């Protein structure tokens, strides 16, 4: 008897037999009277793993995980509370200092003084928030610079941004607030919005959360302002020629645009995940959200987020897409989570991270 019978039986036994194979098996079984009986007997056997792992040990695992999670959550809520108190204290100091003419405030960031202008810079791995002279608040993401005047003039309020920031602008109908970036000017009266304008990303974007903004694209043929409604964003292909060879998130994963304004500009609705999280602004809550994003593009963001430099050795892996969310986790933990989605190896030496 050749092995084909057992090969087919193995497939039969585990329910993965094609109709052709089934006919073949029936033919083989008919060749010998005992075979039918034997195959019937085989089906009668139920296997059980000899247990090695007691249910107490399984309970220990679930206890540790579920209890640990609760403690972490309590701790996290505690620290968020502390952070906000610290922030209120910081604001109070700002008001005090600006009263005596300094008008600046340092919040774990470097502050450079030029005549009449202030500049706040966050390095990679660092984030910051500040309050401007008019009471507007700015949250600055990693690797970003905001230049703003010590005091705003009577006609308008103007700031300059590279990188990413979330603005909560104090309403002042008589003085529009303008954010200048390399490719866009965003003009507002009083509102909340997120601006992403990293020079090394292929696209810049402005996402509106509340109120209304007017975006002027600083490229040829774009004289008409674009008016954004809440939960919309405008994406602009950067004009800069010094774009590295990295595909952006937007290009990787084009969602149907609300409308295409021109070759380089599109308007899109904001999407929420898990019901309430807006990926564009999740960074403010220490949440790293990635959706169908290539490892290459994610690595670029992780560089800024954790202040590291990630090199991906395997080009196929760089194109691999990941979806997930990491709330307040260490780089190593995040890499371990990504490894579960797609296996890879990594090594961390100081600020250099190599993925292969």
């Amino acid at each position, binding site marked *: 008897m050749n092995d084909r019978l057992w090969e087919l039986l193995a497939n039969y036994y585990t329910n993965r037999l094609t109709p052709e194979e089934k006919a073949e098996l029936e033919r083989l079984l008919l060749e010998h009277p005992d075979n039918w009986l034997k195959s019937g*007997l085989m089906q*009668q056997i*139920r*296997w059980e793993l*000899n247990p*090695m*792992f007691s249910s107490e040990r399984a309970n220990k695992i679930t206890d540790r*995980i579920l209890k640990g999670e609760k403690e972490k959550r309590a701790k996290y809520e505690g620290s968020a509370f502390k952070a906000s108190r610290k922030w209120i204290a910081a604001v109070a100091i700002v008001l005090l200092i600006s009263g005596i003419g300094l008008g600046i405030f340092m919040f774990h960031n470097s502050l450079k003084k030029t005549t009449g202008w202030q500049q706040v810079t966050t390095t990679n791995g660092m984030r910051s928030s500040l309050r401007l002279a008019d009471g507007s608040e700015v949250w600055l993401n990693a690797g970003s610079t905001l230049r703003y005047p010590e005091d705003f003039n009577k006609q308008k309020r103007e700031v300059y941004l590279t990188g990413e920031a979330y603005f909560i602008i104090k309403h002042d109908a008589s003085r529009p607030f303008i954010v200048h970036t390399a490719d866009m000017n965003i003009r507002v009266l009083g509102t909340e919005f997120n601006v992403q304008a990293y020079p090394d990303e292929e696209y810049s974007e402005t996402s509106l959360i509340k109120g209304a903004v007017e975006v002027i694209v600083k490229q040829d043929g774009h004289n008409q302002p674009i008016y954004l409604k809440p939960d919309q964003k405008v994406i602009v292909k950067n004009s800069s020629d010094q774009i590295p060879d990295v595909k952006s998130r937007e290009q990787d994963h084009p969602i149907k645009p609300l409308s295409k304004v021109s070759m380089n500009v599109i308007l899109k609705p904001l999407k929420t995940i898990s019901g309430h999280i807006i990926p564009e602004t999740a960074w403010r809550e220490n949440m790293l959200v990635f959706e169908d994003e290539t490892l290459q593009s994610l690595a670029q963001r992780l560089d800024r987020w954790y202040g590291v430099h990630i090199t991906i050795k395997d080009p196929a892996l760089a194109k691999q897409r990941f979806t997930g*969310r990491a709330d307040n986790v260490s780089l190593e933990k995040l890499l371990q989570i990504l490894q*579960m989605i797609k296996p890879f190896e990594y090594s961390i030496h100081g600020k250099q991270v190599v993925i292969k």
Partner: protein
Amino acid sequence: MPLSLPQQIYRVSLGDEPAFCQIVHHYSDRLYQFALSIVKNAEDAEEIVSDVFLNIWLLRKQLPDSSQFTFYLYRAVKNTSLNYLKKKKRKKEAAEAAYFLDAKDNAQNPEELTISQENVLHIKQAINSLPPRCRQIFILVKEDNLSYREVAELLDISPATVNVQMTIAIKKMWQALNPAHHEFRS
């Protein structure tokens, strides 16, 4: 009443703790034995299983579909185990599954053909005398319902090898069965 796997996964995704406990109880033994076959150290294997379930809980909103879930768990255990070996600078040895199987008569209906105790014993001895790797493949295919391709990926072998090993396992069981030793329950 235990929930079906898709129900369990759905409940876990909503943060349901009892459903999570059910999943841990169902899988911890087999995953532990699989981890043990790679790291060869009981303490490490237990920690690996615990790590994987922690990540399952943290990532509960993005769990794979139930048809992929078992494979996803095994793959997570494999990757975590390999990381452990790397961290401890130990080499991966030829994997050897320590686990053994118990055979039981599955007849539920009294009129069904019943397998004799003698045959149950023979078949059990046959499976447990298989080379460990062969037995491991049999368990992953038969008990965890993984495809040949999935088993191949987990064990770093080809699907053809999985087929060969499965054929060997079935042949061994087949030969251990004595068709004279059966009875009809009446």
